[in-house]
């Protein structure tokens, strides 16, 4: 494993689109070659070297490349976009689209992320030590495929619209979430250790939501079925199982209608 360290030296005057900060783009490159990779500020093309101090070098492949990003990156977008392997550690609070359309590897953020992290994610892992913004693991605008695989773990809270159009993978939120969880979901699993507000599982077709805390307003389209004992993330407890959204379309398997499942801990 080779390591590349990026330390921000010149802040963009607006925001920096740095989709080249990924093990795939860095693999097989020296610090000098990495510095020449493109980034964008509005309509102006710049390079990573214009904004970052770069040391180390990329591994032979993405999988053998680790990237460490240091400094205030709150104006840097698209870190780890579309990465297929390797590792990124961000020591800061990156802006939007962290790990968007990610396919493999791991991103660890030792801070908060803004909106659209894990958009359309297909595989790999994102771990966020702080809070996540809105649209975590959701679909890009107009896409009917949200998160399809992989795992996102947020230790703090998350914003609204998490897992919209999700159809695979897993999202675990340590704290609370805002409105709209797994809207339009057709699969996948979302665990909320804290409280949820409202619109949990609205228009949900299939998939699972597990809430440990309160749900302020339950969707009218969810009906209580029975109590079940579950083990979630090493915690065994009794949960109430609701099914829904019964207003939405659902397919049948062996003559039985399949609904989305919502478990709430007692």
């Amino acid at each position: 494993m080779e390591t590349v360290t990026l330390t921000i030296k010149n802040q963009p005057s607006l925001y920096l689109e740095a989709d080249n900060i990924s093990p795939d783009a860095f693999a097989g490159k020296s610090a000098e070659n990495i510095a020449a990779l493109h980034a964008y500020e509005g309509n102006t093309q710049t390079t990573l070297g214009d904004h970052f101090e770069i040391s180390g070098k990329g591994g032979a492949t993405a999988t053998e490349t680790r990237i460490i990003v240091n400094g205030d990156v709150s104006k840097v977008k698209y870190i780890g976009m579309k990465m297929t392997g390797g590792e990124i550690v961000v020591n800061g609070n990156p802006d939007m689209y962290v790990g968007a359309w990610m396919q493999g590897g791991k991103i660890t953020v030792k801070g908060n992320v803004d909106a659209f992290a894990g958009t359309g994610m297909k595989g790999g892992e994102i771990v966020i030590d702080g809070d996540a913004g809105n649209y975590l693991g959701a679909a890009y605008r107009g896409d009917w495929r949200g998160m399809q695989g992989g795992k996102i773990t947020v230790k703090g809270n998350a914003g609204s619209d998490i897992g919209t159009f999700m159809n695979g993978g897993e999202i675990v939120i340590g704290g609370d979430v805002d409105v709209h969880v797994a809207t339009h979901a057709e699969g996948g699993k979302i665990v909320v250790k804290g409280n949820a507000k409202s619109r949990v599982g609205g228009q949900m077709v299939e998939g699972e939501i597990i809430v440990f805390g309160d749900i302020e307003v339950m969707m009218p389209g969810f009906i209580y079925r029975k109590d079940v004992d579950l083990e979630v993330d090493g915690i065994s407890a009794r949960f109430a199982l609701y099914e829904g959204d019964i207003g939405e379309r659902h397919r049948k398997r062996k003559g039985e209608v399949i609904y989305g499942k919502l478990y709430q801990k007692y």
Partner: protein
Amino acid sequence: MTKTVTDVVCPFCGTLCDDLEVVVSDDGKQLLEVYNACAIGAEKFLHSQAEDRLTRPRLQQEDGSWKDVTYDEAIEYTAQMLASSTKPLMYGWSSTNCEAQGVGSEIGEITGAVMDNTATVCHGTSLIAVQDIGIPHCTLGEVKNRADRVVFWGCNPAHAHPRHMSRYSIFPRGFFTGKGHKGRKVIVIDPRKTDTANVADVHLQIEQGRDYELLDALRVAFKGLPLPDVVAGIPKEQIYEAAEVLKSGRFVIIFFGMGVTQSLGKNHNIDEAIAVTRDLNEYTKAAIMPMRGHYNVTGSGAVWGWQFGFPFAVDLSRGFARYNPGETTSNDLLRRGEVDSVFVLGSDPGAHFPFSSVKKISELPSVCIDPHQTPTTAVCKLHVPVAFVGVEIGGCAYRMDNVPIETRKVVEAPEGMMTDEEFLEKVLVRIKEIKGE
């Protein structure tokens, strides 16, 4: 002597009434009277005749005072500002014709701007929902001739679109709706007791911000499945009853406004309302329509739709069109400091945006093109007054049901005044020179 111009189109709200009559002086220079329009529509026409109307551009000085400049100087200022920006925001586009919107798009493309229209604070959320799940749509003509179940959800046409109810939705007698008002059942869903609610057969006084839940409950009720006792403050019996009223109609139309598009959940409310409409088509014929506000906000969505593929919040900064409301929408761009200049045409963000965004506009290089003096022109560095579209110059506009209507010129603009389109054309030529294209 005076002349009367008939079949005039009202350039105020999305109803785009096309039956106005306007009396003008013989030389065509003065507009004297307006017939058939509602009060707000007539006001728009008469405004063009104001004595204190500005007829030349003016530039704000360091000390806040204004200095008159020529159109040429204004063109130079605007072109230089846009050409030197890293990411300009070009906002508005709802109170102008499609011709001007087309030229504006070209400027946006060569300067790498973000193009956004008033949908961003209005029906943009509806457009997101339409992209997500589609829309069963119809024209206002179909509504007039066929609809016997009319729903107004979170909108109050009695005030915002005054002639909508008499021309299309409640009162007119159409081909299959010969009984007019008597043959229609009107349902209003609104937390307030509005004037529209007063003419309704059913008023569901919903708890604020619970639209998504009530819409979901309707879908459950259509299927005859069990509901909780009360949803969104409405007892379930009333919800089942409303569901029956809708299912038993021959043609259901759902009109919705900013009460649902800008309250909690935004696009999801519309998404669910469209799903309700889709479900209703299992039992009868149903369509849904946003009550668009500005007379040609629909047109700017149509122009950008065919030019860029997206109806608002189009980010052209990297040379291709990107669209992600939440990131590329004006207020998010301003709040986050993502743009370095602001160009406004055909809208008044100074009056409609949050204070923090207006403050950002005032801190940036900014130009506002508007026939009126508005809160926006007050904070912009350059104000360029132009001719009134639909009064002093014609051009294409799209009604709220996506029907294009050619607006008409009824009087001459004051001597030497430019139109939106002429001004933009000149700015475009100058930007091309600056960029060496």
